[in-house]
């Protein structure tokens, strides 16, 4: 039984030495597009150093990120679905929403372009043609910001998509691009994730430039009156940092293979 005693002792030591307890932590729920693209890896370290804290990034879809804010399991959310964000603030779950940056959505498709939509500037009409041609379309199907936008576009096209050509993946943007590549289908993606995936997919941008594809990101602090444990000071500093000159310069300076992913409003 000596071994058990020793291991128990060791475990208690380990628990006490757990680095997770050392610094102040700010919990940030955000979307896969900001994290997987590598933006946060550039953006967060200067903030962490300046404030001697650690930002814990939980990268999920916009829908889930907002849910985590509602339950108070995070301090700040950084998401991209204006309709959901406004609801989140209106219902008193979040306060102090600020515009952070924007990019745009694009419709990706195979080079063969079976629906014949390449070069179109009307996203809703292009989706209509995809449905008419019953060409494969891979949907996120996960209540993410991109999925929310896709549903809005289908609504604008007056179509409720269903059938064997419409695949609801229920996965992140990267997986959906991979799936659409393998199946030779179309999909809606944010431009950032597409650029990050450019070398790994055969899909090309077939539709871009529609005002309906504008993709703004907002940051919201979880309402401390609802959840008293929210780290108000640190969260306020974080909101300030993202919208400061330093934060904006880092966002606009972020490049993947020479291409700019995110823009800020002047």
């Amino acid at each position, binding site marked *: 039984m000596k*071994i058990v005693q020793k*291991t*128990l002792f060791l*475990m208690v030591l*380990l*628990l006490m030495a*757990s*680095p*997770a307890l050392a610094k102040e*932590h700010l*919990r940030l729920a955000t979307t*896969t597009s900001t994290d*997987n693209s590598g933006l946060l890896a550039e953006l967060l370290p200067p903030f962490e150093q300046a404030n001697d804290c*650690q930002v*814990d*990034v*939980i*990268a999920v879809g916009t829908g889930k990120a907002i849910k985590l804010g509602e*339950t*108070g*399991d995070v301090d700040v959310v950084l998401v991209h679905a204006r309709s959901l964000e406004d609801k989140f603030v209106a219902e008193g779950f979040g306060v102090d929403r600020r515009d952070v940056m924007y990019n745009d959505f694009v419709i990706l498709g195979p080079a063969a372009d079976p629906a014949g939509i390449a070069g179109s500037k009307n996203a809703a009409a292009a989706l209509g043609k995809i449905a008419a041609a019953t060409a494969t379309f891979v949907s996120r199907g996960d209540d993410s910001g991109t999925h929310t936008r896709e549903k809005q576009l289908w609504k604008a096209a007056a179509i409720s998509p269903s059938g064997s050509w419409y695949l609801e993946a229920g*996965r*992140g943007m*990267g*997986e959906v*691009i*991979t799936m659409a590549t393998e199946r030779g289908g179309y999909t809606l993606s944010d431009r950032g994730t597409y650029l*990050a*995936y450019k070398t*790994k*997919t055969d899909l090309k941008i077939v539709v871009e430039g529609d005002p309906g594809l504008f993709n703004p990101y907002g940051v919201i602090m979880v309402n401390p009156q609802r*959840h008293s*444990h929210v780290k108000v000071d640190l969260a306020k500093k974080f909101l300030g940092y993202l919208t400061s000159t330093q934060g904006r310069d880092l966002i606009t300076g972020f490049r993947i293979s020479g291409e700019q992913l995110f823009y800020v409003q002047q």
Partner: protein
Amino acid sequence: MSYLLDSLLKALELIFSFDHEVRMAVWTSLYTSGCATLLSGLAGIPLGLWLGTSRFSGRRLAITLLNTLMALPTVVVGLLLFGLFSRQGPLGPLGLLFTPLAMIAGQTVLAAPIVANLVLAAVAGADERIIKTALTLGATRLQAAHQLLREIRFGVMAAVIAGFGRVVAEVGVAMMLGGNIRNSTRTMTTAIALETSKGEFAFGLALGMILLGVALLVNLGLNLLQQR
């Protein structure tokens, strides 16, 4: 072929460059699964011994329940404890969600039934006379149980190893309760899931190879312990 070769080279590169993030992921994996295995041993071994040696009505039902718990999907455990640890849940004020402690709790729930079941099987396979003889020779019940434990130590070790195997390899609980936070709750398996979702298949596979290597080392260590 080049894909697999690339992953192998990448794995070797990662190991020998002592990449900080990879080291943190290995450490988090070992730390959480290690603690969870230990806790599930503390709960599962006595439970298995008790179920194996005592006779009471409802015992068969208890064993069937225990067997069913072995089939618990990791996401179900994740979901249950998520509700428990979330700020909205009964244990919310503790703020445990998205910490290593929440992962340890979830993995303990996963591993304990396996440990208990395999210990129970080992007891069933042991000579029934061990306990009786010990009791006749004047041992207390606790001493008799200790004697039984010595006799079936290989089976107990196998149970602990199986429990460790399940938790170090699972991704559902680690992802849902840990949140895959870099340098904090990112384990080998959630890192693999992340790299796969980013399309970095070679990198993901490289991490997979490291995970396998780490599991091999742990089992070698346990094997040595067993032979003493």
